[in-house]
């Protein structure tokens, strides 16, 4: 469904990567590994349409995925380095905003990451791991076929990694695709690995 052909990325006149090809079918997961600065985050941003590609093609169902970037954005969820939280809003308010953008229900998403008890707290007082979980709770809102995850388990404790694993398994069982960049072991069984 998602196919990359000879993708290249250039940042500040430096070639980050070039000639990158892979394809993902429904239910597939792709793990991006490589040293710092190898271009894992750049590749994820490129797949999301947030970075322009220097060369190559990105196909969705055989057609140019990035021809209509607003349409492409609707089929994916991106979890980047920032958790996109507003410190002054409570955990529930932060997630409710994304629920209005993407659809889906807030309470089950909070529960999926074990955040129900923290829902009334302003995001400002949450710990780094709790903020990360709140960022990941966006994945548990309405379904989207492609998840792009940049170091999703940074700062997470073991039980939260397990919760994320359950989310990922459900997403893939429903035919969802995952591309994740990581240095830590991720709960993604049978994932293909792409070394940048």
């Amino acid at each position, binding site marked *: 469904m998602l196919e990359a052909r000879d993708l290249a990325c250039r940042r500040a006149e430096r070639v980050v990567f070039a000639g990158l090809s892979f394809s993902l079918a429904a239910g597939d997961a792709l793990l991006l590994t490589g040293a710092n600065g190898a271009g894992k985050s750049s590749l994820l941003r490129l797949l999301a349409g947030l970075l322009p590609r220097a060369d190559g093609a990105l196909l969705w169902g055989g057609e140019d995925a990035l021809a209509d970037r607003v349409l492409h954005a609707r089929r994916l969820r991106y979890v980047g380095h920032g958790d996109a939280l507003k410190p002054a809003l409570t955990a529930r308010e932060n997630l409710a905003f*994304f629920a209005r953008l993407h659809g889906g229900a807030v309470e089950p998403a909070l529960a999926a990451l074990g955040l129900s008890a923290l829902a009334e707290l302003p995001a400002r007082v949450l710990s780094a791991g709790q903020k990360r979980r709140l960022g990941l709770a966006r994945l548990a809102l309405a379904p989207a076929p492609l998840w792009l995850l940049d170091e999703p388990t940074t700062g997470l404790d073991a039980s939260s990694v397990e919760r994320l694993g359950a989310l990922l398994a459900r997403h893939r069982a429903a035919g969802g695709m995952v591309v994740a960049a990581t240095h830590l072991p991720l709960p993604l069984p049978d994932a293909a690995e792409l070394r940048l």
Partner: protein
Amino acid sequence: MTGWLALLARELRLALRHPADTLAAVLFFVLVAALFPFGIGPAPEALARLAPGALLAAALLAALLPLDRLLGADAEDGSLDQLLLSGLGPAAIAAAKALAHWITTGLPLLAATPVAAAMLNLPVEAWGTAMAALGLAAAFLSLLGTAGAALTLGARRGGVLLPLIVLPLAIPSVIFGAAAIEAAAAGGTARPYLLLLAALVAAATPLAPLAAGAALRGE
């Protein structure tokens, strides 16, 4: 549309949670206006002569204050990426930001206009026109400012660059706004100037968000 309203509602809610930002702009406006009487000394006629331009300049400078955080905060915490991936077009995002800036910075300035106008010895008859002119000029600045904020996003010293880009473009709104207030103070009709000001806002309403959207895209 739901998403657009959700974004606008979130911007307004954040402004309510941080009332100090709005208050700072209002106080800045009043204080700049208060500097003129001190500088000019006890000459009420000279002060009234300067009042229209001084009001406009003070209001535009005050409205510039929160602009560099308008998109900067969202870019730093990852919100901007999420907004660009929300299914809203970048121009729609920029339009929501501009409207939120006008509501949270431009409109509160109107509430302080009588205070500033009194300090500048502007005749009471012209206060209503002054508020209309400032409201329209602030809307023009919100639109231009959003485009400027999008262009300077990620630039080093973007906060300094922003006024240098935005203020020259805002000059027409100062000319028409001051002319409107002057006409009202002299007992004439301010309508043509206010209409010209409204025309500026009408032209910038589609153009500035489109420019801002293009800049956000290229980021």
